[in-house]
């Protein structure tokens, strides 16, 4: 197994799938000649040519729409948003066309498209460029939402996304592109809707994805020092959710902290907490705890930004509340 960066893993996924299926093409801002704003598409234009790796103007609504149109006619586009903050401009195309056409055409028109790019906060990019929009996409019927937390998951999940006939929102992280991790040398697919237990434990379940997976892992290490054996699980696909894995874990630990980077109101964590409450009610020994980003636009100041983004300390405290430890 080779140790590669997150961006290399994503790059491999796209290259391998483009090699396998000539209908797949990549389109977005600076994905071609500049090799990607974060170098995720490095080498792809050289390898697959300008017809399959296309630089677009700064016009998200436009190229998202072009992508959807291409998907409707049989191609399988990858639309890269430089960050998902810019996808807000393209939401009409995503919500109203990508998500709905298969339904509204009675199944006659498929939209096999992947919108990918980094989501959430990076580092001091200001309020407008530091937003976690996971719940927005999850709220719209017709979209699959995936958010990997490791290079291995990124590659396997992106390949699954590219092989699916439905529109997939694939949310990466700017802060994790340089993260290294072991990735299998042989081909593998991580199916949509499958989560993974990242750390086995018996006392409490910590649920986190994307960057928050690592916050949960750090919290689990801190809890371990206090004799608390936390289980960390990563749903990986936010919609459809791997309910079975979550419920099984809660049945074991009887307690849970859901951690998400986004804002608290109507967050994905709220949905997960509800499902636990609904399906594992008799197994709960404490209310499900939630940790989210603070309910404010992201401050630019570094110290304040750090306070707004969930950290391991907050997760540890929430875990202790759920364990009735003062």
């Amino acid at each position, binding site marked *: 197994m080779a140790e590669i960066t997150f961006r290399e893993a994503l790059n491999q996924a796209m290259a391998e799938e483009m090699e396998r299926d000539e209908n797949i093409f990549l389109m977005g801002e600076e994905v071609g000649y500049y090799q990607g704003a974060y170098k995720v598409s490095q080498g792809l234009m050289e390898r697959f040519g300008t017809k399959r790796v296309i630089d677009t103007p700064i016009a998200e609504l436009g190229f998202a729409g072009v992508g959807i149109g291409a998907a409707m006619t049989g191609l399988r586009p990858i639309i890269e948003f430089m960050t998902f903050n810019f996808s807000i401009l393209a939401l009409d195309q995503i919500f109203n066309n990508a998500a709905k056409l298969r339904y509204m055409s009675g199944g006659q028109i498929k939209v096999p498209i992947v919108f990918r790019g980094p989501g959430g906060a990076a580092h001091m990019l200001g309020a407008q460029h530091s937003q976690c929009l996971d719940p927005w996409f999850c709220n719209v019927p017709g979209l699959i939402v995936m958010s990997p937390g490791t290079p291995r998951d990124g590659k396997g999940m992106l390949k699954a996304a590219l092989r699916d006939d439905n529109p997939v929102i694939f949310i990466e992280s700017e802060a994790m592109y340089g993260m290294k991790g072991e990735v299998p040398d042989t081909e593998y697919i991580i199916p949509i809707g499958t989560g993974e237990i990242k750390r086995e434990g018996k006392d409490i379940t910590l649920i986190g994805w994307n960057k928050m997976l690592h916050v949960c892992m750090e919290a689990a290490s801190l809890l371990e020092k206090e004799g608390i054996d936390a289980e960390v699980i990563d749903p990986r696909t936010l919609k459809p959710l791997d309910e079975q894995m979550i419920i099984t874990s809660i049945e074991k630990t*009887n307690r849970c902290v859901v951690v998400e980077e986004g804002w608290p109101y109507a967050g994905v964590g709220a949905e997960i907490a509800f499902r636990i409450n609904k399906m594992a009610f*008799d*197994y709960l020994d404490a209310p499900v705890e939630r940790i989210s980003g603070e309910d404010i636009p992201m401050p630019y100041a570094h110290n304040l930004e750090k306070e707004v983004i969930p950290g391991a300390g907050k997760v540890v405290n929430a875990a202790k509340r759920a364990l009735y430890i003062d």
Partner: protein
Amino acid sequence: MAIKMTMPKLSDTMEEGTIIKWLKKEGEAIKAGQVVAEAESDKATMELEAFDEGILKKIVVPEGGKVGVGGLIAVIGEEDEDISDILEANEEDTKPEPEKTKETNKTETESKAPEPPKPAVAAPPPTTVSPPAKTDIKTASDGTRLKASPLAKKLAGEKGVNLRSLQGSGTGGRIIRRDVINFLDKVQNSEAAEKEPVKVNLTTMRDVISRRMTLSKTTIPHFYLTTEVDVRKTAEFRKALNESQSDIKISFNDIIVKAVSLALKKHKNINASFAGDHILQHDRIDIGVAVTLDEGLITPVVRNCDQKSIGDISKEIRSMVKRAKERKLVPEEYTKATFTISNLGMYNIEEFSAIINPPEAAILAVGAVKKVPVIEEDQISIGQRMKLTLSSDHRVIDGVAAALFMRDLKKRIENPMAMVL
């Protein structure tokens, strides 16, 4: 407000309880947590604690009285509070069953007595494990919502734990899993405790025995000599004696008492007491005979055995044993022996070592008469043997002196005819 004290469920199988003792009188002040009475279930006697403070207004169930679990046993209230309502309601409740059924049938909903409130008494530790009623899960006894985590409720339901008997340790008093688990552990422990040894208080006699025997074994340097006695002739002698007269029945022990007294007369150093800086040799030969009683043992003393016939000794022992069992002996009859004989032969004990009864200097342990093969003149025949073990106080008696006494005693028992001379 007046508070009812009711009979708690002290064990799983308890249906009614008996008030053994009231530790408080009517009119006395009671503090919460104070033990006010002792009650007996089918299994044990437990202390009943008051949950609330107030005046013990009325004892409803007197000492020795029985009442069903949950039944009113007393009322606690303010000094000048009128509790007649409660007492009347209680009388109504305890009316014979058929009458009550009739009444409730007539006006079912109206005449139904209100649910009895939570018992005002608790038996530590609580062991009320029973399938909880539906209402237990939702409400506490005082009508407030009972807070328990879903898991705690599920667990309690599975294990048959009444959540009302738990104290919640979670946020805001919420009952959580660990509360149920701790409770189950406690119940298990208390069940285990029931299997522990039963505590038996020392009777006065037991107390005396324990102290005297400890004193003896810790202060007297004991040594032991055992000899085997051929009792063939003794048995014949005894048979002849018993056949000669119908009003007495001489035992082996009677003969031994007589033989010992004669041997002691000769060996005055055995019939003695250690007295710190000197030894007392007794002129009188008063032999204590250990008699077992239900609660211990006692040694009635036959005075001046050397001067009495075997028949007299036998009669005296018989009479004293009878009175000892009736606990009618007076102290003069069981104190101041100069030597003691303990016989476990009737329990088929072959031999044993006895503990000296201070201030005596020796004690003789008599074993059972056994038929054994003996070789006499190269012939195997059936003989009768008995083992005697002398425990001696080495401060008074040396080994040889004790051996000489035993040799003398053996000779006397083996040739019993000499005793009637």
